[in-house]
């Protein structure tokens, strides 16, 4: 923990952050909810990367997922339903040095916040966006969400969902400037950790769709995938999500997929079953909007005054 190196030298940091430094209030999700696993992984990554808590912001909208900032020991912004991304982008716009995490859900991001999702991908601001996709509205008690499978019974569609679900993966891949898209499941801690870690390491807008258990309202959906790993397709590649050899045995289906290959990513994403797990697409070269939006950030008072006076002089009579 003190950065013991191969030559036995010790790198003692002035401040060392333990897991507890990233813990806020006690998590109040239902027992068995997949959100607990995601929270734990986010806190571990913060710790492993030694992110100063004061320089880290967890931003969310409204919904079960969006309680996450309350359980973090960092700065947090628990805002409005569907509107986590504009706030997160605004935070980043003039403070690019801040580490921004976004917790959102299938309803929050893909329904009420869908417009912001499209455009946030285009802005490609450097942040880690975790979509807790449990195919249902949980906080408001079992309404159909954009990713609810056709025929699934909910309180708004007691006869079964009447529309084909929206595919967030193909939709995201269709947006210009997409730079990082991955999918994982909450019940495989190693893959969950590796995926979010890769997302966080990416400089740009990293979107991770997390297939997440809701034990109360959509249990059978995730249980089906848990019980039948053949319904998952593990994506492997040296540039993909690193997987320990011994984990491979949990996945009967694997496919070698180069995450720089957009057309293959699109083909894989098109198939809802088996659901792809891993890094679908990665382009580290897409420019980040904050490089433009933060220009002039540190201009001094004298320069500003000169700039204002020059502007005023343009209107002189």
């Amino acid at each position, binding site marked *: 923990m003190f950065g013991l190196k191969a030559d036995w030298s010790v790198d003692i940091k002035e401040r060392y952050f333990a897991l507890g430094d990233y813990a806020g209030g006690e998590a109040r999700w239902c027992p068995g909810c997949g959100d607990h696993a995601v929270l734990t992984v986010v806190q571990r990554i913060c710790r492993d990367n030694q992110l100063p808590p*004061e320089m880290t912001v967890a931003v969310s909208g409204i919904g079960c997922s969006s309680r996450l900032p309350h359980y973090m020991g960092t700065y947090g912004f628990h805002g409005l339903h569907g509107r986590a991304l*504009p706030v997160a982008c*605004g935070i980043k*716009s003039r403070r690019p040095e801040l580490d921004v995490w976004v917790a959102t859900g299938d309803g929050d991001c893909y329904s009420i916040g869908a*417009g912001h999702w499209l455009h946030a991908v285009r802005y490609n601001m450097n942040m880690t966006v975790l979509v807790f996709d449990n195919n249902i509205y949980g906080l408001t008690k079992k309404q159909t969400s954009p990713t609810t499978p056709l025929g699934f019974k909910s309180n708004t569609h007691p006869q079964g969902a009447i529309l084909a679900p929206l595919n967030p993966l193909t939709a995201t891949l269709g947006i210009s400037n997409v730079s990082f898209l991955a999918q994982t499941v909450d019940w495989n801690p190693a893959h969950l950790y590796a995926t979010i870690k890769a997302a966080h390491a990416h400089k740009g807008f990293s979107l991770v769709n997390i297939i997440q258990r809701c034990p109360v309202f959509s249990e059978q959906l995730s249980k089906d995938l848990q019980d039948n790993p053949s319904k998952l397709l593990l994506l492997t590649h040296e540039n993909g999500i690193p997987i320990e050899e011994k984990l491979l045995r949990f996945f009967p289906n694997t496919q070698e997929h180069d995450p720089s290959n957009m057309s293959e990513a699109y083909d894989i994403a098109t198939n809802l079953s088996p659901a792809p797990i891993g890094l679908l697409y990665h382009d580290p070269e897409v420019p980040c909007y904050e490089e433009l939006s933060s220009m*002039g950030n540190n201009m001094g008072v004298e320069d*500003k005054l000169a700039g*204002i006076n*020059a502007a005023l002089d343009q209107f002189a*009579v």
Partner: protein
Amino acid sequence: MSKTKQAVRIDEHIIEIVSDSGEGAQKAGQTFGTISAKMGNGVWTVEIIPAEIKPPARSPAGASGIRIRLGSHYITNMGNAADIVVALNEQVLYSRIATHAYKRGTVVLLENKWLTDPNPEIIKQYQSAVAEFRENGLVVLEVPMEVECLKLTPRPRLGKNMFVLGMLNHIYSRDMEKAYREVAFTFQRKGQKVIDLNHKLLQAGYDFAKENIDYHYDIPLWREPDSKDPLIVTNGNQAMGLGVMASGMDLVSMYPITPATSASHYLADVYHQVGGFVHQAEDEIAAVGFAIGSSYAGKTACTITSGPGLALKTEFIALAVMAEIPLVIGVVQRGGPSTGLPTKVEQGDLLASLYGEPGDAPKIVIAASTIEECFHFVIMARKLAETFRTPVILLTDANLGTGVQPYPRPDAKAEWLAAPIDQSPWEKDVPPFDWNEETGLSSRPIVGQPGGEFVLTGLAHTKQSKVAYDRDSNQRGCNMRSRKLAALYGTLKAPEIHGESEGDILVVGWGSTLGAIEEAVDQLQNEGHKVSSIHLRFLSPLEPGLKEIFSKFKNILTIEINYSDEADAPLITSGNRRYTQLAMILRAQTLVDVDCWSNVHGQPIQPGLIYDELIRRLKN
């Protein structure tokens, strides 16, 4: 014609140039206004905007142009009926006549090329219009502008505006040296050849008027020509943009909406000079969310919009109130409801600004009443937002936004700029909402301050920012947020009374009607009537002392550009009459029987109409 006619000395005049769009009327008028301002006249210019984007040529709906009011005193509004109109075709005049822009005796200098048009239909239209105008009292002077311009250029459509400028320069005894300089400046990017041609057209117009037009005036100057006290000439949206820069704001986050967008156009051009950034968001909601994110992270931000955009932003504005995030929201009001009158003026967003959000969302609302205030109020708004940890809505309107006026050039000051963000450690055990019991004020931890980590939430919360659904916490949060307005109220001064502090009628106004109201009130006072006025800049909290001021007048009357039922309209009784927006607030706050007079014509209220209405009331 008397070629050596002496110039008649006048106090002021209103001039219009009207044409199809694309004929350069606005450029000619703006240049005329600038020359006049530089000479030392009081000036107000306002654009005449066609109702459609690409209206057919020679149609009433296509009237495009500009009105310039010149005076030997400081001009504060667009005035009443025009004195002289230059029109490039007769059809566009119909829409101006319909808005009562002219009076009997208004002189129309009308392009007469239509009389020889190859299309007999057009000749007929022209002849019948001229006859009709004359019958209605307009003094029509047919001027061969096209013929004169053709002597200098094969494409007179492009240069006729400079010929018009030349004519006006002679009629109003303008300084031609200044005119030459302004024209050269206007066309500097187009090269010397273009400048030379336009100079020739300018001179031709001047010479033509000298030889052929009897009208010749002299308007004494309001201030020394080229006075050392510098002036700038801007419209209200440019003033707001300049204010954003001078306030040290980091970011403007906007979505295009008429008539507010030109403020952002201007900033997009120059904001980099002060290190700022204009973010064009994907929608109105994202625009305010982005600004809130930036402001939460300690970088000052504002969003600029108009009524429909304000409506979309309400949920975020309520969040900024609830979570006490500083934010400036500029609202350039237009006619509503719904898409309404996008290019035209209304003061219809006052109640939406005050009460647009569900629940109790107290915030600061101020209104600029001059173009100069559009500049200074942005700076004030930023400071208020940060000091009181709250959103501030700054109301202007289409009249201020597009009106152009000279005013004293502000000198940028370091103290206007936002302070650099505090990144020092947050004091241990100080909660993120350390409300002062008396004022409701607290200072806020900024992301980056170690030890200040907290989760901001739109849910009801304690001073620790912990979600709390219990009755006491919610009551207390509401108390604290409301108390901030009371604390601000305590620092405000009573409004200045324009005129005597007692009398028959006190007119109360807010926003862009200041100039028109005071002009009408001045006229009445000069005639010996006991009429005074006050003009409110703070709408939330209201300015103090109103009840005392009201108590000295027999009648209190608000004059506003938003809807009210006329008291004697069918079915209207004292039980169901709907008052103007400020009147409603004043009645509730003071328990005084405040009356109101308003219209929603989509036009600035003319001082003459205000005068007539006040006379009518004085007689009753």
